[in-house]
């Protein structure tokens, strides 16, 4: 049976389910169990599962990540959360030198079965150190899995898959998705990593996206459809493992590829996907594959500057039009937006 949940509720349900099913699941992070409970995602867990399994922590990201690694070696399944990806820069020694390599470098015994939830900031002046996106970094490291859900349904299924995966998983939640709603089954389920979802199947061009940008792509594609342009939209859901097959299959049909990525251009996952397609599907391409990303500049605080920082549906539509040599009038799409450009909707009114 399903009901409509928002993204935070879906995450919360996945956590509660995991902790019920398995007494070895523990959950901690700065603010876990406080009145706001990580945007509600850890609501009620401390009360239900007790302070030994659900706890707040010192501002010591690096040690706490190592502690998660150690706990996992004895079979616990720690789920750690950071309210911003940026804070996790302090813990990369533990993530990369220990968690990612443990299984391999000790010859295949234990593994660091930890889940790291990272919340990505955007809008309302989050600025240069509260809205970074580092999924390209994580994807570069063998031993990590990197998951980027787009909707409440996937969030629940992918988070359960993450928690019960014996390897370290970086689970990235875009703050702007927290308010999104969808039908979510109340029974437990897991969504396998490495299975992209084709949200729309089209003939003219393939858009590959992840996380929040999938929504923008979807709006753009629907808008383009009304103008007779048929676009595929693929939501990767996980970037490591990466579902090459679904991408390749679609590009084989359309011959045209646009990759969206919520990160700086240089060294982006978008570049990786273009490289994969160019190397493996060269003959299938009708024209140069392209990407839309954030610029190679830190994310500024001023709303005057973020307007052009983040690719949005009208920009995507315009880009598709440009690639296809069609005039698509993206202004009409832009006009549909009823709230300021630096909030995801009415439910968000700052500051975090």
């Amino acid at each position: 049976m399903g009901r409509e949940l928002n993204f935070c509720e879906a995450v919360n349900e996945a956590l509660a389910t995991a902790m019920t099913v398995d007494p070895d699941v523990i959950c901690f992070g700065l603010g876990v169990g406080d009145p706001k409970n990580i945007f509600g995602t850890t609501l009620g867990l401390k009360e239900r599962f007790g302070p030994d399994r659900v706890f707040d922590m010192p501002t010591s990201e690096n040690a706490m990540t190592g502690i998660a690694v150690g706990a996992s070696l004895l079979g616990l399944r720690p789920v750690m959360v950071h309210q911003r990806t940026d804070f996790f820069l302090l813990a990369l020694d533990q993530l990369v030198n220990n968690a990612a390599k443990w299984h391999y470098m000790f010859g295949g015994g234990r593994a660091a079965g930890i889940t790291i939830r990272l919340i990505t900031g955007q809008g309302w002046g989050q600025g240069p150190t509260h809205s970074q996106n580092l999924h390209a970094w994580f994807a570069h490291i063998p031993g990590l899995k990197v998951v980027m859900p787009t909707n409440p349904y996937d969030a629940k299924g992918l988070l359960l898959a993450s928690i019960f995966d014996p390897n370290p998983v970086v689970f990235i939640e875009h703050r702007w998705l927290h308010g999104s709603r969808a039908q979510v089954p109340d029974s437990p389920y897991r969504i396998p990593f490495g299975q992209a979802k084709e949200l729309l199947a089209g003939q003219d061009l393939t858009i590959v996206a992840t996380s929040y940008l999938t929504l923008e792509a979807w709006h753009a594609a629907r808008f383009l459809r009304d103008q007779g342009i048929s676009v595929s939209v693929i939501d990767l859901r996980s970037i490591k493992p990466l579902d090459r097959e679904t991408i390749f299959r679609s590009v084989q049909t359309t011959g045209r590829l646009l990759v969206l990525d919520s990160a700086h251009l240089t060294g982006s996952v978008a570049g990786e996907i273009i490289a994969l397609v160019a190397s493996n599907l060269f003959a299938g391409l009708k024209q140069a594959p392209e990407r839309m990303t954030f610029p190679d500049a830190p994310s500024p605080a001023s709303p005057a500057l973020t307007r052009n920082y983040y690719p949005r549906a009208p920009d995507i539509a315009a880009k598709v039009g440009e690639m296809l040599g069609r005039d698509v009038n993206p202004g009409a799409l832009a006009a549909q937006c009823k709230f300021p450009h630096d909030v995801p909707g009415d439910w968000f009114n700052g500051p975090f």
Partner: protein
Amino acid sequence: METTPEIALALLAQMKRIRMVEEAIADRYPEGRMRCPTHLSIGQEAPAAVLGSLLRMDDLVVSSHRAHAHYLAKGGSLRALIAELYGKETGCSRGRGGSMHLVDIDAGFMGSTAIVANSIPVGAGLGLALRMRHSENIACIFLGDGAVEEGVFYETANFAVLRRLPVVFICENNGYSVYSPLSVRQPENRELSSLAAAIGLRSGCVDSVDVLALHAQVAERMRAAREECLPAFIEIKTFRWREHCGPNHDDDLGYRDARLVDYWHAHDPLRLLQERLLDERCITSVGLATMERGIRDEIEDAFRFAEDSPFPDPDTLAEGVYRADDSVGIPWVGN
């Protein structure tokens, strides 16, 4: 240094100014035109004001996410602060940084950053440079009780002691990191200053309720730090009145003991100082009204300035990532 009436009045003026600025921000924040996360210092004015009065113009300061008070007390431009909150080109960081990234080089306010504890080593680096240049200035590092939990605090303190850097760590202990009390983050009965002392810093703990006592004690420690050129750590007990981030009160959430909140409301350092100075006739109520009017005017002016200022040009979004100057004479060669 003795806390003269002049100093006492200056402290009052600075604290009042900080409080009134922060309240003005809080009042206007809901308009939705200061679109950046903003951490107010209402209740915590005393440490900033005291340090502001003890630091020299060319001493240096770094701070954290909660930096408005430090910036203002060190002499940072109010106009540039408010413009920064509005995301304007005239902001102290030209709208790039927002409330969490303030700077005023002319005032010696070298920068505040929003990753907990990560300006701490930057402050020590300033100290290293001051020492190398045989400067008599010091670098003052503002941090919170949460920042002490980051390993980098400890690493920095170790190095500061090792190299006898002219730095003073000012730890504003307001008992909370966001909604998390010290009890979920640090062992019971820990004295932050004993911990700092064990690392090797000259350490002490003072309370901010009595601002004049605070001033005298901090002055003495600052003098020692300067003269002996030894790094120091001063824990100052204080209290944040409003929510961690944003303009509202949040005591309805019940994360702080009501008695604690009541205690600090009853012991507002600013009000106590003001009453004392009135009592002691250091200032009259007319003088006070004049002081407040002056501040109000300054605030009005700053908001008007901010509102009238232009936004950054969106086309400059990707500019300024790299600095361009090239000041050395070593020749360039081609391929």
